[in-house]
């Protein structure tokens, strides 16, 4: 029997950048907030001394355990989906601060093209450029409208960087200067410049100097120790919710953070959310937490599954292409980070050093910054050379004709350690009618609820854009003077690995309730006091990681929730009916 708790103003599900930001803003504004996190409590000092590659990178210390639940996955509608069973194939974050605590820290705003992708594509190339079944649409918000929220998030997070020479208009510089450039990054930039491209130092959530954000939270300068991705920062030099929005929420005294609290249903009555039902994962005790406003700010998979299990909104049906929940599923798959690898016989780079967001980048082949008239895809990708810093298990790169074990492997893997540089193209991924999420008919979680099922197929668009990117990266690696240049191979089909952390959509924003689930304040069209914040709101996957866009939209949502609470309800944005068929 669920224990009923006292009602609060707002209950927030999830504690990453999305949930953390909303909780910080609303508790600062004086509202009583309860934040629920399924994972354990943690704090920044827990990560002192964590530089253990096997434990964190190979055994996934910070990744959600799949013991109780996972997702199932298939390629096509008539396939039988099977569970993704191993943590190494399914990397989602958990614990206080969410996946953001072990992020690399790569920071890119998405492009003005993204937010009006359908209109802008049609305007430049005509309606025929968009293939049948590609469900792109304008987002119901423009880049210029979102820009102040990007700016706010970058200041909270203390981003270090310099403007992209091909970037959209910014109201301010990044709050911190760019990171130092290593010799490998200098080589990348100089070589790219020589062939007429526009490289720059990528922006990062690793701090280039000690920084105190507008909420008074302080971050240390990054030491380039190379333990970022898959690790919490040993030195508090990486921006994450534990270092920023969570302590900001805590010090207001208005935010009650409850960890080990797995939300299993959104409760609702007469078209309004009344609270959530959650289970204490340590004791099994169920609780009912009533609230005036419910905010789902968990990972994409959980946001979608919670709505489906709670019977809120209309689930997407690929046969009729109607319904919105589960629609517009995209992510970064095995077609996303392809490029070319260079092996240098006469140069050695200090590649055991690095930082998650340390790299060179260029946008010449991004978004619609180049002419697609004669190309068989839309959108583009970012090109990067990243110096994460490789530890010893990972650093086993050998040219393709080398055996993967034995004497020759040992010889070459020792020789090419620190002589191997990769340049990749992070291609954008478009939504299609046949790629979506629903509930699995067979597999269940530890409480007996159905698992989320993902149906995802690589399309010609995905293969064509990747092929283009591989060619461009190969040109750069050749210009860098590598002795052996190896372009990546194109995959035939999706390989069911979800180890890139970035999967989005399913509760996507827009201006038409027929095709979108939330408006541009991330308020549900079907339930005005339910806000669904996070990657689930993004209608397609642009050419870079989604974190800053999730952060910006979280600030936008927080503003909307405050308005909703102040003005006593109502829809915050007006629905527009379909002017185009999708």
């Amino acid at each position, binding site marked *: 029997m669920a224990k009923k708790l006292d009602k609060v103003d707002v209950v927030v599900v999830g504690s990453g950048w999305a949930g953390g930001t909303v909780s910080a803003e609303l508790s600062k504004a004086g509202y009583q907030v309860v934040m629920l996190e399924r994972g354990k409590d943690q704090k920044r000092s827990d990560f002192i*001394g964590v*530089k*253990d590659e*096997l434990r964190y990178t*190979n055994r996934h210390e910070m990744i959600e355990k*799949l*013991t109780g*639940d996972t997702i*199932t*996955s*298939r*390629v096509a509608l*008539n*396939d*039988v989906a*099977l*569970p*993704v*069973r*191993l*943590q*190494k*194939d399914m990397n989602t974050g958990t614990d206080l601060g969410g996946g953001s605590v072990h992020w690399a820290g790569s920071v890119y705003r998405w492009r003005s093209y993204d937010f009006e992708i359908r209109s802008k594509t049609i305007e430049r190339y005509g309606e025929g450029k968009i293939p049948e079944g590609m469900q792109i649409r304008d987002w119901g918000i423009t880049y210029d409208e979102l820009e102040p929220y990007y700016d706010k998030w970058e200041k909270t997070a203390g981003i270090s960087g310099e403007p992209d020479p091909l970037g959209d208009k910014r109201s301010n510089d990044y709050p911190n200067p760019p990171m130092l450039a*290593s*010799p490998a990054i200098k080589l990348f930039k100089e070589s790219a410049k020589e062939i007429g491209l526009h490289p720059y130092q990528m922006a990062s959530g690793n701090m280039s100097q000690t920084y105190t954000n507008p909420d008074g939270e302080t971050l240390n*300068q990054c*030491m*380039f*120790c*190379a*333990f970022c991705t898959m690790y919490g920062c040993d030195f508090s030099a990486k921006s994450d919710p534990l270092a920023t929005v969570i302590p900001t929420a805590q010090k207001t005294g208005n935010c009650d953070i409850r960890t080990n609290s797995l939300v299993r249903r959104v409760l609702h009555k007469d078209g309004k959310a009344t609270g959530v039902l959650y289970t204490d994962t340590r004791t099994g005790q169920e609780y009912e937490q009533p609230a005036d406003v419910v905010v789902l700010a968990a990972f994409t998979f959980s946001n979608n599954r919670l709505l489906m299990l709670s019977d809120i909104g209309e689930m997407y049906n690929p046969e009729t292409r109607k319904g919105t929940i589960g629609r517009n599923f995209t992510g970064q798959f*095995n077609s996303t980070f392809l490029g070319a690898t260079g092996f240098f016989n006469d140069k*050695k*780079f*200090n590649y*055991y*050093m*690095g930082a998650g967001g340390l790299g060179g980048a260029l946008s010449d082949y991004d978004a619609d910054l180049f002419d697609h008239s004669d190309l068989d895809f839309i959108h583009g990708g970012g090109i990067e050379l990243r110096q994460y810093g490789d*530890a*010893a*298990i990972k*650093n*086993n790169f050998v040219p393709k004709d080398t055996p*993967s*074990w*034995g*004497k020759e492997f*040992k*010889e070459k893997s*020792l020789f090419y*350690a*620190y002589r191997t540089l990769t340049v990749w193209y992070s291609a954008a991924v478009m939504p299609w009618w046949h790629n979506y999420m629903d509930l699995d008919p*067979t597999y*269940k979680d530890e409480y007996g609820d159905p698992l989320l099922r993902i149906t995802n197929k690589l399309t010609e668009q995905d293969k064509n854009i990747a092929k283009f990117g591989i060619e461009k990266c190969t040109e750069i690696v050749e210009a860098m003077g590598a002795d052996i240049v190896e372009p990546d191979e194109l*995959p*035939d*089909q999706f*390989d*069911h*690995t979800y180890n890139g952390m970035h999967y989005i959509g399913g509760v996507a924003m827009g201006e038409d309730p027929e095709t979108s689930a939330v408006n541009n304040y991330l308020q549900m069209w079907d339930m005005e006091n339910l806000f669904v914040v996070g990657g689930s709101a993004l209608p397609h996957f642009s050419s870079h990681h989604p974190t800053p866009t999730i952060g910006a939209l979280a600030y936008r949502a927080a503003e909307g929730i405050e308005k909703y609470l102040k003005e006593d309800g109502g829809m915050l944005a007006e629905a527009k009916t379909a002017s185009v068929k999708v």
Partner: protein
Amino acid sequence: MANNQKPNNNSSGMSRRNFLKNSGLVAGGLLGGSLFGGLVTSQFQKGTKDESASNTKVQESFEARTFFSRNEDFDLLSAATERIFPEDEHGPGAIELGVPYFIDRQCSGDWGNNANDYMHGPFPTITKTEQYEEDGVNTEKVTSSTVVKVPAGTPSYQTKMTRGVFFLEGIRAMEQTSKEKFDDRFIKLEPEQQDEVLQMFESGEVQFSGVDSADFFSLLRQTTIEGVYADPVYGGNRNMEAWKMKEYPGPRMSFLNEIEEEDFIVMKPESLRNYQGH
């Protein structure tokens, strides 16, 4: 030949000669770590390693099997890891690095028991791609190199076996294959013959326990590499010998002053024990 070297299960799995040679470093590490913390430890050790090596008595090793009950399973595993990462002019191979013990420990823990993976049924019982084709299931080729992708076109590891069980079944299938093909036990074979058995497994020629041998090989290969290069705390990479071969410095506080350096910098490796400072 190093590849035929039989591990000594009563002590540490590496030869006595090497054990004596390296034990000074082990003792030095323990001594430094117990007296000082953090950076102080590292500084202290740098100055005293050689001295402590010369006047410290041999440290007894307590290394033993806790997962592989049968000697013959462990012996085969050891020989196979040595073929995957052999001793050569660059330095020690898998056996001397302690990789068999690393794998033994991994198999008995959470990872070996798939404690953090989704292991609920139903498990599909058909494993051949052709059968899926007959059933009209999508079998487009995938490029994943994941363990146990049964069959092509589905998520990996659709088996009820834990990794520990998988290791036992795989090792015994290797022994069986060795006897069938060369009429002798795997550890008695010539190195080239051992390689041939490993290649048969790598190419997926052998089927056992409803899985593909290529999946077992890929698990064996990956775990061997992990044992070679993981921090010595897990039982492999003894005395950080693999890090020395790779010129990997181990966990460090800062490279702020070196990140812009043009020349490659070789540092004496330090372990997690050093880094954590106790």
